[in-house]
């Protein structure tokens, strides 16, 4: 993918500190158009911090990032161009599922609001919950609404933080197939997840982050040290949680 496709995400020497904690240390990575890029790491490694910097929600202490061709300093332009699924499902409590999607469409200036809203409520089988307040939905239902909110404007770049969390297997498959469809259309997806089985089926390139630094980046095949090593084995080996797989 690299070399033939334009970079859509470029992070150069990103560092970020929160009080005593250095969350990111000189992180650099590039995601090209058409990549399904997976970022993995232990809890507290810096995945969400990096994603928030890439989407302009927070600024790095040093370094630079461009997302969808826009500096992450211009967070509004970044957010207009991409779809974001945040780590925690927190839709507005007092809006219904339908109203949340309507609001998203109106903020993004989309046409055919009713059609889009109906389509995505249907995709996530939430038609009978359309008039339920978001705070009264289950976790999985709220996650569906956050996904729908990110997909509804059909962005060319998606940044997803744990998109499969709280979804049942039916919808994990459905979302997975949808994302694979986007990839086939040449769109780009940047994803953080702990569900390595799904990530292994989807990701064309991955990076492993630990303790605020990227320790490895490439394709899964490039990272395999021995035949048969799966993504979980690679992850465990790289973050030092277990012995290398030996045969």
């Amino acid at each position, binding site marked *: 993918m690299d070399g033939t496709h334009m970079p859509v995400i470029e992070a150069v020497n990103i560092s970020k500190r929160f009080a005593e904690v250095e969350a990111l240390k000189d992180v650099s990575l590039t995601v090209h158009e058409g990549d399904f890029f997976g970022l993995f790491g232990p809890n507290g490694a810096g995945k969400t911090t990096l994603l928030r910097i890439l989407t302009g929600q927070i600024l790095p202490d040093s370094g630079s990032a461009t997302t969808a061709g826009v500096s992450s300093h211009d967070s509004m332009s970044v957010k207009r161009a991409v779809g974001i699924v945040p780590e925690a499902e927190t839709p507005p409590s007092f809006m219904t599922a339908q109203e949340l999607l309507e*609001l998203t469409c109106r903020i993004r200036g989309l046409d055919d609001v009713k059609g889009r809203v109906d389509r995505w409520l249907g995709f996530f089988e939430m038609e009978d919950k359309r008039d*339920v307040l978001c*705070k009264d939905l289950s976790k999985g239902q709220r996650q569906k609404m956050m996904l729908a909110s990110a997909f509804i404007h059909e962005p060319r770049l998606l940044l997803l933080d744990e998109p499969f969390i709280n979804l049942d297997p039916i919808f994990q498959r459905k979302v997975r197939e949808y994302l694979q469809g986007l990839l086939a259309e040449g769109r780009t997806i940047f994803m953080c997840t702990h569900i390595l089985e799904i990530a292994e089926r989807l990701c064309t390139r991955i990076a492993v982050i630990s303790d605020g630094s990227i320790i490895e980046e490439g394709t899964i095949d490039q990272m395999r040290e021995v035949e048969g090593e799966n993504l979980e084995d690679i992850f465990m080996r790289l973050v030092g949680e277990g012995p290398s797989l030996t045969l």
Partner: protein
Amino acid sequence: MLREEWRLHQSLIGPMGSAFFPGFIFVFTVALAVLVPMFLSGLCYSTLLLMFHVASVMYGLFVGSIGHIGEEIWSRRLGQINVILQLPQIHPLSFKRVMAIFYLKDALYYILYSYAPFTLGLAVAAPLAGIALGSVAQLCLTMVLTFMMGMSLSFLLSASAVRSRRAAGVIGLSVLGVASLVWPLNVLTPGQLLLPLGYWYKPNPLLLVFSVAVTVTLSISAVTVIKERFEASQRRHRSSLLDVEPRFAFTGKLSSLVAKEWVELSRSGVMKQVVLGLAGTLLGVYFIIWLIETGLGFHFPFNVVSYSGFVGFMGVLTYSWITAMEHNESLNALPVSVDEVVEAKLVLYLILTAGISAGCVILISVARAELGLLALGLLVAGANAVYAGSVAARLTGLWTNTMFFDAKVISKFAAAVVPPLLVVESASLWIQVIGAPVVYTIAAVSLVQVAASILMLRGVRGKWRRVSFAFAVTEA
């Protein structure tokens, strides 16, 4: 739980902010104590004591309404914040037990946070004011006991309301019935209802023991009625944002955000707080004026314009309520900036305060037969509401409730808002004496406030555009 409360406070308002409130109470009490001899020239001793104890029971009623917290936790109203109270959801802990401990924690916290600095302030000022230290100790004791009576009653009412609004209504009406025996029926004296107050007239320790017994009985009753299990509700609203949005088409590109705010306001229960808050504020204004006239013996030519300034100024409470309606973290994923949401909330604020403030001013001018000053009163109320709201928006963004505990922020707010208000208030007292020149002066000051509001609103964009939506922001 005490540690959790302190850390929550610190995370919301910082250590300086946490110290500000008790520090303010201390200084205010010292000043008040020094003024006691002046108050006593117009007020009798018993009225002063009554005021202190009524204030204590009201304070207790206000802070004690925690019985609904269980339902709020269950219905995920606390957003990203999780507290010890939620542990019974997943651990073998009785929610009644945890709530009982929470209630005791709250009581201790408010006593230490409010009554301790109050007592210290009185004790420090006692020699200057000619108050015996023994009286200070007794006043602290009786006020705390009265506070606890109010707090336990409020706890019972709020806990009962979760089970049955009817039952809570019956309890509430019963209490009002008993209170009416004091006023207006004058069957009982205040000291016979507020037993710790009665101790000042008949120093019988049994009165204090009975007040403790009442508090304990109400508290135990409240804990007993606390629900252990909450049914998941699924309230449905068959409305569409697309139907609401056209009402706000006059706001241009903010219309969808204003529609969102309107929908949230009407469903979150904040409207009740807005109305009660403003009504309570008006009562407070009347009380302060009564206190000045009766207590200090000063008779000022107050008129509708004098009241209008306060009505407008106190509208800022409405802004703080509507910024606390909802955490907006989900908006981080959308191309919406904090300043846009602030502007949307300001539109909502103006709609609410315009109606309520205008209504109050009209009522006051009719009651006082001052219809000739109605137009000026409306201008003053409107200008102060717009100005106070825009200053609050500029200084605090979406975090008014927490940032107003920050001494720097509240000082800046006071420095910006109080001087023009004082000019208007002072000038209003001369309307009947000087006439037209004063009216023009007040109108000019009001127009300057409106112009300054426009500048403040421009500042909102610069200050809040780059900030993320978060649970709390202590500085920007």
